[in-house]
């Protein structure tokens, strides 16, 4: 996993999977990387071949942490792979998350 801080945006990428085994570490890492004057978090899911319910939980945790910040940080999920997109739809979380393709 890579994290890249670009002014007001935190960019997270190269996530191979997000599951019970690593979801806690993911959540801790993201929380630790949140700088003060952040406007946006972008999580690139293009490399993510697998997400399970714990992985979803971790994304929700990040979403809640971001929304809870003063002024609110936008969480954007980028380019999820088809199985992960399916999972979002199955669990109706595509209504919660902002999902972008670019």
């Amino acid at each position, binding site marked *: 996993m890579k994290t890249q801080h670009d002014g007001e945006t935190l960019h997270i990428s190269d996530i191979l999977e997000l*599951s*019970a085994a690593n979801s806690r570490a993911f959540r801790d890492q993201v929380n630790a990387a949140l700088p003060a004057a952040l406007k946006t978090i972008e999580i690139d899911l293009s490399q993510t071949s697998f997400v*399970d319910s714990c992985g*979803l*939980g971790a994304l929700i945790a990040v979403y*809640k942490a971001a929304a809870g910040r003063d002024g609110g940080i936008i969480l954007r999920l980028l380019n999820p792979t088809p199985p992960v997109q399916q999972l979002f739809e*199955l*669990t*109706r979380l595509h209504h919660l998350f902002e999902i972008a393709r670019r």
Partner: protein
Amino acid sequence: MTASFPKTARAVTFELALECNLDAVRSAVVAVRQFLAEQGLPEDELTACEIALVEACNNAIQYAPVHRHGEPVEIKAICNGAKLELQVTDHTPGFDWPEAAALPDPTCERGRGLFLIQTLMQPVRYFRGGTGNTLVMRRGRTRQGYHHSTLGPEGLAQTTETAERLRDSERVITDMAKELCVRSESLSAIFRCSAELGRSNDLKEFSERLLNDLLHITSSDWFVLRLVSGSDTCLEVFAASEPFSVPLPPALHLDTPAANPGAVEWQAASQRREIRFDLEHPLAGADPLTSLGRNSSGLVCPLFLHDRLIGTLAVGRDLSDAERLSAREAEVVRTFAGFLAIQCVNAQLQEDHVNGRLIARELEIARNIQRALLPKSFPCVRGFSLCGFLQSARQVGGDLYDVLPVSDDALLLIVADVMGHGVPAAMFAAILRSLVRVLPEWTHQPSALLSKMNRMLYDDLSEVEMFITAQLAFVDIRQRVLTAASAGHCPLLLASASQPAVRTVSPEGMPLGILRNPAFTDETVPLGKGARLLLYTDGLTELRDGQGQCFGQQRLMRWLASAVARRLPADAMKTELAASLEQFQPLDPLPDDQTFLILAEDNSGS
């Protein structure tokens, strides 16, 4: 991780043991995915299986108790042309599989695993067992997923296919039967035991068998069934699982809370609610149930029928090998408790009914004895007529009347009342009747007869604390005298045309069976012309009307005077007196036997 690839052409199985560690899940599932891909599953199905399997494995690992972390999670994938099945065997305490898991609130971080499994796989069954639980997830394969690696000739292929389907159906049926078994086991146990109860009528044995079934069904280790007894304040152990500490735990007294500090059974009974106990809410040190296992988890259900507390049922399991009872197991315990309550009450009713029948039977026997003792016909004495009357009370007493011919011109009249009821009283009446008959040499001397009888009956009567009052009257027609003796009995009434004033004859004497050697006296009175003689028991004089007024001796005397004046024969007197008694107290049943004996001189002789 171990894997095996059976080289079967059709149903292909892949088995794998997964170490109880979340980090190991991913690679194991990837291996299963690889296997499924080899069977020709399309990408979307592979993804569905992968997610479902990961969720199942995560649960199996996350909920495994620490002491079972050494046991692997077992994964099995079975794939044929039409279907695939994934099995995950866990070593958790198991949980209640929801019929349909719902999605949580979108911002909730947990609670999507079962939803995903149920959405992606269909059907899904969770089989709970003693050593492990198996989650069986199935999925029908889409048409393009067909993959025949080794197709034989078409006919053979069809036969194999049919055989395969048959085997598959059989497996489905077996699984369904297994599941039905779990659900219906409680019901069948109940039905089986009910049938046995009908045969054996032994509530204790029945309860033990039923509750042992309950232990089996709920994987519990012990039970204690208490029933309320002793004026509804005492909970006594009725049945308990073996082996139980010897002796049985003491009865719990519902009205003395201080005597049962913290006893959950007492709490459940007095607070009329279910009480659970487990590691977080352990049994108190002084709780009698701790003798079954201090570290137990379980449930105490109060047993009710309608609002009446019948008892308590405590069921527990040793925490060393399992966790607390699940909601469904608790429900099964509840069902059994409710069922037992009904059965206990039924058994009680049954017993009461049998006792009632016994009492009714005993009364019938006593009544039959009493009837059999009465004379079928009276001896003929020239110029006189005789009539007797005996009306039994509901609780048959020992009233008796008898007439013995002493000679052509002499009779012995007897009216007696055995103090007591039922068969014993009737038996003494029978003995008394026999004694009079075996002592003919004394019949002309009633006091001596009473002395003899008292001597012979005293030991038996005093042993059962009963006594007999009796009135004996020896009537000599030729001499026209009457000699009477009484053993504590009510007076004899006598009147005649020549002496119309009613005379009470009541010689001194104790009832039979009170003193060993009491003195009896004879009283001899002349028998006037047109004499009417009435011997009776106190059931007549002590009869009360609706206002509590006694029938009384005066009323009898007035009636006798009137009967003498009207020259009524004995049978007419009997009819009239019986009618007037009935009119006085028309209640049924009678409080006491009513007995009387009438001797009347015919009008021709007067």
